[in-house]
Every structure is written in C-alpha cells, then in structure tokens.
C-alpha cells in the first residue's frame, strides 16, 4: 500500500495490483460491478438486505407485540386501524408477526447455509483428494442420501428427533449436503492433478494443508452460487415443515406455521393465510434472482439459463 492511489476506484481497478490484498479486492470489485448491472439480481439483493434489517430491528419496527392476543379484535380485515395487514384468529397483529417471523426464517436459512455446504465440502474434497476406497465409500453414502426424496427424509428425521426449529434445521441440512459433496468432489478431481498442486506437494505440503489452503478456496465460488440458488429451496422446505407442524411450534410466528393456522379460515378470512405466503414467496424469489445473477458473475460457463 506504499503507492496509495488517489481514489478508491482507481486503487480497485488498477491494472497492476501492488499486493495480494489489492488483487483480491479488485477481483471482488469487478464481480460487484458486473452484478450491479444486473437489475433483477440487485432487486433480489435489495429484498434480502431489507429482510436482514427488518429481522435485526424487529422489536422496534413491529407496531405490536407478536404474541399478545386480543380476542375482541380477531380476524380483522386488511387496513384496519392500527392493523395494516389485519389480525389472526387470536387477534394478533399479522404484520408484527410477519416482521418477527423474518428472524426465524433468516435463522433457519443461515444455519442450513452454514452446515450443509461445509459438510458437503468436507466430504467432497476428502473423497476427491484421497481417492480409492475412501472415495468409493464416501460417494456410496452420498448416493444413498441422494436417492432419498428430500422432504420425506426430512419428515422422517424430524419424526425421530422431535419437532422444533433446531431439528428442522438439522433435518434439512442432512438432506441438503449431498449435492455439495458431489460438486466439491468433481472440482477437487480436476484441481488435484494440476501442476501447481504437484509443485506444492514437492515443497513438502501435507494433504491437510493442500486441501484447506489450495483446494477449498477454488471450490468456494461455485459453492456460493449453489448455496444462493438453494436458499429458496431451504426456505420452502422450512416453511413446509412449519406448515406440517414439524418445524417451529405454534405461538412462534414462523411463516409456514402461520399459513397452517390461517388455513382453517381460508374461505372466509383469506388474508390470514395469504400474507405469510406472500412473504415466503418474496424472499425465495429474491434469493433466486440473486443466485441467477451471482451465477452469471462467478460461473459464466452455465449462464445459458
């Protein structure tokens, strides 16, 4: 950083990065610029950022307490004084419940997005790097999990572990890791035989160092794309478990569970089930849009869709 350029932009777009850090940041910046030109992806990003902010400041944004019941005020329609999105069957404000529900949704998505890809990365890179019997055994296990229908397997897991958010997260992660493992293995196989890996190996680097320092970083970008595109599926799966009564438990304002509550009055009080559904739709749409945009930036070879 001795040759401090005049502006940040110049520093980031410099043709001759002076340090490793500058090169890294410049690569990020270039990706960001090309993502920024994709309007749909930016709309998705905006929705996700809004969701994060709403979740962070939920108690201050929400007009009412999401748990306080007001039985004299049940099933009020949209636009009622003080209840913009109406109230549910126990007189709780739907808008406030949606706002607090954003926390649960983000919590589930973040946990699954941490557990499943990391597990897949571990299994995939070990399998690809080790080869031989290890590879065969690990890939067989992966195939078995892939052979299972995801929702049914998640249902069975939740049945075994008991209903609740943490167990729903575990069940979804257990069904979500195999594709990541497959992907990481395929990448590892192509990286493993490249010259620079041989060079490091000759310098005396052990398998652990090679995997962590030299293989993982190269798997990350395709993993990120895949995770973002999977987020929508994770949200839908979590909402589905909540809807079936196997995810977050009743007083909690989880969106899927809210739809399940509203289902009983759907023909007379349509908004009770409609509003949480719209929230789920908006968020998973946002993740899909952002994922498509990220794929175009990070993984241009697949960008035909």
């Amino acid at each position: 950083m001795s040759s401090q350029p005049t502006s940040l932009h110049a520093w980031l777009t410099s043709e001759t990065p002076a340090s490793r850090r500058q090169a890294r940041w410049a690569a990020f910046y270039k990706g960001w610029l090309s993502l920024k030109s994709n309007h749909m992806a930016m709309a998705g990003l905006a929705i996700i950022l809004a969701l994060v902010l709403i979740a962070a400041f939920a108690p201050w944004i929400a007009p009412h307490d999401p748990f306080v019941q007001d039985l004299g005020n049940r099933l009020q329609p949209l636009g009622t004084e003080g209840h913009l999105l109406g109230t549910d069957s126990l007189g709780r404000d739907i808008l406030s419940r949606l706002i607090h529900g954003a926390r649960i949704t983000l919590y589930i998505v973040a946990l699954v997005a941490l557990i499943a890809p990391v597990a897949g990365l571990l299994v995939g890179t070990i399998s690809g790097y080790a080869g031989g019997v290890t590879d065969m055994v690990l890939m067989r296990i992966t195939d078995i999990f892939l052979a299972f229908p995801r929702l049914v397997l998640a249902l069975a897991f939740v049945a075994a572990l008991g209903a609740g958010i943490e167990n729903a997260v575990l069940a979804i992660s257990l069904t979500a890791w195999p594709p990541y493992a497959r992907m990481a293995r395929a990448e590892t196989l192509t990286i493993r035989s490249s010259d620079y890996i041989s060079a490091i190996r000759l310098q005396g680097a052990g398998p652990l160092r090679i995997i962590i320092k030299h293989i993982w970083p190269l798997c990350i970008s395709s993993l990120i794309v895949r995770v973002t595109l999977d987020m929508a599926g994770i949200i839908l799966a979590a909402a589905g478990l909540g809807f079936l009564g196997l995810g977050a438990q009743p007083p909690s304002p989880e969106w899927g569970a809210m739809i399940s509550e509203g289902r009983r009055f759907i023909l007379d009080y349509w908004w009770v089930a409609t509003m949480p559904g719209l929230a789920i739709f908006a968020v998973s749409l946002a993740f899909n849009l952002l994922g498509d945009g990220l794929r175009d930036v990070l993984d241009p070879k697949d960008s035909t869709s």
Partner: protein
Amino acid sequence: MQMQRNFVKRQPRLPLPHWVRGLIVSLFSISITMLGLLFVTFLIGRVMPIDPVLAVVGERASQEQYEAVFLELGLDKPLIVQFFYYVADVLRGDFGTSLLTARPVAEDIARVFPATFELATIGIFLGCVLGVPLGVMAAVRRGSWIDQIARVVALVGYSMPIFWLGLMGLLVFYGILGWVGGPGRQGIFYEDMIPSVTGMILLDSLIAGDWGAFWDAFSHIILPASLLGYYSLAYISRMTRSFMLEQLSAEYVTTARVKGMSEWAVIWTHAFRNIRVQLITVIALSYANLLEGSVLTEIIFSWPGIGSYITTALLSADMNAVLGGTVIVGLVFICLNVFSDLLYKVFDPRSK
C-alpha cells in the same frame, strides 16, 4: 464404423455378453443403495424416542408381558443382527403393523399408492405437454416475449410455496368461482359408489361406465394435478430451454439451415431429436419429485395418497407406517432413476 467394430473385436473376449455384465453391475449398485436406504430408515427407527415395545403392549402391560414382547421383537440382539432381521422382513414385504389402522403397513400402502400415482401421472403429463414446447419456443425465440414469459413462469414456480399456491387455488377456483370440486377425491354423492379395480378413480369410473362419477372425480383431481403440473413445468421448460440453446448453437444446425431446410424441420427433426435423451432424464427426475412433492399437496387437498399417509402416521407417532412409507417412496425414486438410465441407453446411440 468399420474401424470401431474391429476395435471391439480385438478386445479380450469376456466370459459374459456385455449387457449381462452391465445388468449385474447396475443391479449390484442398486442393491447397495437400497441396503443403505434401509439402514438409514432402520437407524431413524432406532433413535426414535418412542419405545417400540410400549407401542405394541400398551402402557398398562405387566413386566412379564413387556419382556416377552421385548424378546419377540429381537431387541436383546446386537444392532447389526436386528438390522438383518429388518432387511429380511422388508424383503418379504413385511413392514410391520400400523398402530393407527391396525393393518399391515404394506396393505395400507398398496391402498393409498394408486391415489398418489394417479395425481402425479396427470401432473407430469401436464408438465411435459406444456413445459417442453414452452422451453423449445423460449430457446428458439431467445430474448423475445415468449422467452420472458417462460422465465417468469419458471422463477415463480421455483419460489412459490406449493402448499400456499394450493390454498390460493382452492380459495379462488373452489371457494369463489366454484369451477372445481373441493378437497378429497370425490364428492360425497359419489363416495364408495365405484367398485375399486385399479384404485385410480378416473380409471375405475371409466371401467364402471359411470360418466357422472368420472366427471366428479375429474373436477376433484384437476386442481391438485395442475398444481403439480405447474411445478414440473417450471423445471422441465427451463431444462428444455438450456438443452435446446446448446443444440441450436451447434454447427449441424447451421448446416441444416444453409441447406435450405425449413425452420420447423431444423428445430423438431434435428435439434429436438438430440435433446430427447437428456429430456427423458429430466422428466423421470421430476416425476420422482412429484411422487414425493405431493406430500404437501395431498395435505392441502385432503388427498388420501402416500404423502398424507406418511404425514398422518408421523403426527400420531406410528413409526412402522412412517418408515414403511419412506422406504416405498425411496424405492420408487431409485427405480425411476434406474429406469431413466435404461432409457438413456436405449435412445442414445453413443452409449451402445
């Protein structure tokens, strides 16, 4: 071609014909996968917080009764031995008895499966009939309004919770417009009127020649089937589009155009012929997904299929039924995958 044949002849002679070897290898790999599937369900059944003995004898059983059943179920044996008992039972088609219906689980599943099959089959039919042409058109007219529509259709399909869309469909088409039948497979008037032959009401009512019952069943199945059809349409049209784009940019397409072939012939007899193989895999995969994805749809529409069966069993802690259902769904899943691999070999001359 001649060269290739010579090459094959020069290889050392195998003791078995090539396809027999292939069959043995794939049968072996299927059975390993099946065994793994059974092992996972077995483990799930073992870590359940529900005592399998209490589930049989009930809360008020004496200590002796409890121990007798404990030994009878083989729970004193090592886990691995128990697993082999379990596999042997499953191979004989014995999934135990359902606590809820007090009937063998296998019998229950045979009763509910046709309902799911009927629903998923109509769903995949709709998905193919609409999704494939949509995907082809979107690829041919890339960037046009039809491509945009295909994109939005797919995006919405990927992002919409299926159970919510089902509820909204019920609200609009049943509650407000009254165009379709409500939840369930039949109206009250026709319930149990049709003798069950195949278990699929549409077919059964045709066999019985009862048109009233047929239209009634049709009005009940059309909404959930369209819903499933929409979800497979989203996936199929997207995949068709990207396969077609790949073919249309190939040189043989340009050659065909230069030769003066009509656009119709270029698209359907050249490019489309070459994506059939990939499409079969995609369709088989989404068919398998429909058989499973119908879990939530079946709940919404009170459809008495395997999805509702598993979920109801789950909520009442009927573990034999849950595991039996899971194994069956997994089995169907694996079979469809194998089937699509086989079709692949039949249709793709390169794999011969």
